[in-house]
Structures are given as C-alpha cells and as structure tokens.
C-alpha cells in the first residue's frame, strides 16, 4: 500500500458488520482537505458499510476513526454532523414532498443564522438545482435529485463529505456532471470521500482511490495511476 500523510479524515483498521460476521475487515482509508478519495471495489466488498461505520451508523467491532486528529470512533451520526462530517446516502436522500429550497434549508438545521448565505453558496456549486428552487424534490430527475442531496449535505459546510454512490442509476451525462460538481466541492476545501461502483468514472475524477475486496484493503494509489494499472480488472474479477 502506498504511504499517505495523515489526513483530515482517517479510518484505521475498521472491522464492522451488521451482525456477528464482519463485512469490513481491518480496512483503512484517509482523506485530506480538498481531496477527492474514491472507495472502489466489486459488489459486496464492504464499501458502503465502511462509509456507514465512519459516519456512526454502525459501531465498529475494531478500529478507529479520527477527524482532524481527534478520535470520533463510535460517536452517533448527529455528533459527527456537528463536528463537520456530512453524509449523503444512496437512497432516501431528499425529502420528496418538500421543495428544493426547503430541502436545502433542512440541511442547515444546526445553524441559527446565515442559512440564506449557505443556500447561495451551495447553489453557486449546483446552479442546476437553483433553477428548481420552488419545485417539490420528488418531481426532480434522478440527476437533479442526486445534486440536491449533495447540496443539502453541504449546507453545514462540512470538513468532510461522504457520498454513497452518487452516480448510481444515472445516465452518462449526469454522471459526468455529478463528478464535475464533486470536483467543485473539493476545490472549496472539503475532503470528499466517494463510494462508487463505476470505477472508471471515479478514477477519471478522483485524486486517490482505495480498492476494497471482500472487506479488506486490496490496493490504493493515485487515481490516475490506478486507471492505467493493468491489474485493476483482476482486482474486481478475482484471481
């Protein structure tokens, strides 16, 4: 495994699962400010489980999570949100009966002021979302919904944003657009950790990538380097 500096987010030796049998085994990742880190791997590798464990939905059986050097292992999601971690799940990530604007405002629920400024800031990253402010979120297309969900995750200006398969089910043009926006988010200084099934698209946009296989770290490297790695296919197909 290539060596990495300490990051804004560090997960070390995480073992976690939904029952007695762990799905993630001694997995480690780290992300630095302004960096896009992709977590890739075959189906069932434990990528989403790792993300959920980092965000506190699952208590790890072993391992530690550090945010800006401070241990946050096992803290509940609400505690992590107030410490600056945002999380956007794959489904159920917008309130369909609320308008786009209301969804964004809900995302800022911990703030007592300056919400409108945040709305403006987020809309500058997602102008497409700005065009549909008064529409109910349930009427948006898949791509727009994905962007709204990400926008809502940014409302509290997190240090780290965790995204679970933001391009799942999206057409190629939307996939490209979502990745462009992830890049804009990272440019504003947020560390973005993205779990993805579409490894090719992720590697074209991310800075660093971890490959998880059967719950364990298999490899990690600069995304561009991995893209050219002839062994990449084998990591996904076994052997």
């Amino acid at each position, binding site marked *: 495994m290539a060596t990495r500096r300490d990051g804004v987010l560090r997960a070390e030796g995480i073992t976690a699962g939904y029952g007695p049998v762990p799905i993630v085994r001694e997995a480690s990742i780290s992300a630095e400010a302004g960096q896009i880190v992709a977590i890739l791997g075959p*189906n069932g590798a434990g990528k989403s489980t790792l993300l959920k464990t980092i965000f506190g939905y699952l208590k790890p059986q072993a391992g530690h999570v550090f945010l800006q050097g401070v241990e946050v292992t096992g803290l509940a999601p609400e505690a992590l949100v107030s410490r600056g971690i945002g999380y956007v799940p794959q489904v159920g990530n917008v309130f369909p009966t609320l308008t786009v604007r209301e969804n964004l405002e809900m995302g800022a629920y911990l703030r007592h002021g300056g919400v409108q400024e945040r709305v403006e800031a987020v809309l500058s990253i997602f102008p497409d979302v700005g065009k549909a402010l008064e529409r109910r979120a349930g009427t948006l297309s898949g791509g727009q919904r994905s962007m709204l969900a990400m926008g809502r995750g940014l409302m509290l200006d997190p240090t780290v944003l965790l995204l679970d398969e933001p391009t*799942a089910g999206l057409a190629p043009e939307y996939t490209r657009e979502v990745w462009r926006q992830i890049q804009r988010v990272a440019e504003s200084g947020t560390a973005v950790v993205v779990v993805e099934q*579409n490894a090719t*698209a992720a590697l074209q946009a991310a800075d660093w990538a971890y490959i998880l296989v059967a719950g364990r770290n298999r490899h990690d490297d600069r995304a561009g380097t991995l893209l050219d790695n002839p062994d990449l296919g084998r990591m996904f*197909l076994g052997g």
Partner: protein
Amino acid sequence: MTDDLALRVTGVSRSFGGLHAVAGCSFTVRRGTITGLIGPNGAGKSTMLNLLAGALQPDEGSIRFFGGEIARLPSFQIARLGMARTFQLSSEFARMTVLENLMVAPLNQRGDSVWAALLGPRIWKREEREHVASAWSLLQRFNLVHLAHEYAGNLSGGQKRLLELARALHMKPRLLLLDEPMAGVNPALISQLTDYIAALKGEGLTVVMVEHEMGTVERLCDPVIVMAQGRVLAEGSMAEIRANEAVVTAYLSGQRV
C-alpha cells in the same frame, strides 16, 4: 423432442417502463453443468433468472427447457416440468419445523387431489411415507438431521441456506436455479456450501447460478456467462472471462448505463 441442452434462451427481452432490464439475451445451458451467470450490478441477471423460472414473462423471445417452450408458462407449471429455484425462508416457513419445510416441497402428491384424498388414504399414505423417507435422506445429506424438529426460523444463516437447498431438491428437479447462494453466508461456511453444490453435479442435475462471489464462481462454475446491460457479453471458463477486455471494462464501469 428432447434437447441435450437443458436451456436454450433466444432473443429474450424484458423491460420495466423505460428500463430495458434484459435486451435481446441469448445463451444455452448444457445438461449436467453448473453454469454461472455473472455480471456487474444492473446487468439483468436476477431479471433473467426470474424470466427462466416464470416469475416474470418476457416481452420477446423464446426459452426452451429440455426442448419444450416455457417462455410464457406460469411459474408453477415450469416448476412441475422440473425447474426448481431456492426461495428465502419466509416468516411462515420459519414457524414450521425443518422436516415440515421439506414435506411441503414434493410436487404432484396424490393427496393433493380431492378425489385421491377421499378415495384412497392408502395411496397417498404410502406416497407420504416415501416423501418422509426421502426428506430424511436429504436431511442426512445436509447434516440437518439433529435439527429436524427445530423451527426453521431458529437455524443459523448457513443452515437456512442448506434447508432452502434441500427443499428445492426435494422436488427432484432437472434444473436448479440459484440466486446468489453465498450472499450473507459466513465466509467460514462458504466452502462447505460450495462442496454441497459441487456434489449436485455428480447426480446429473443442471445448475444455473447467479453469484457475485468470484471465488465461488471459479470453484463451481464452468462455463461462466457474463451479462452486461441486459445481454450476454461473453461466455467461457473463468480464466477466459477474466482475460476478456470487454468483460473487464464492463465490471470497471460498474453500472448498466
């Protein structure tokens, strides 16, 4: 006319609204093989399995099962023709014992018909004794004898898988469909479950298996059919599949679009 092919799928398509889950899919399954069906998420594998079993009807195409057309038959008729699939233990079956779970499986039981039930307890009683005997032999085979009178809901995950397998086999099928048999199974049990499935080949049973766990596919399946975007992308041994650039590209793209 009986084919030597267990299955011949030709030009099968199935859409759900605008989603073309299966789009012009064609392949064959040779009798006596354990044929793997793999592919990235959204490739259409589970939809294809449901089309084979008759849980879904194709919009187009033909499916021949040992030479007979089954594409638009209801699932219970396809089951009677000898195609079995495993089903996850539902809550109702969880409240029955392991032995009772097996006893519901056999088809064409004489006692099922009102006439036979009224006219001849001897007829269906003897048949029932045979079923009980074959149930016990299945329990022995899968090492579940000591759990025969345990509620199926109390079994471990791996044991439940074995019971689901035994229940499908009690129908004495000609072809068995397995949908991700290793999903959620404790890694320590995967090799045991693999051995049980491998043993089926020796009995002339044909198996079609959708699976993501590549180690399992490699150990059990030959040939392996790769689906992507609703159609067949490649077919061959696992080694050939891995070396196939189109397959690798499909997996790295991760999704059907």
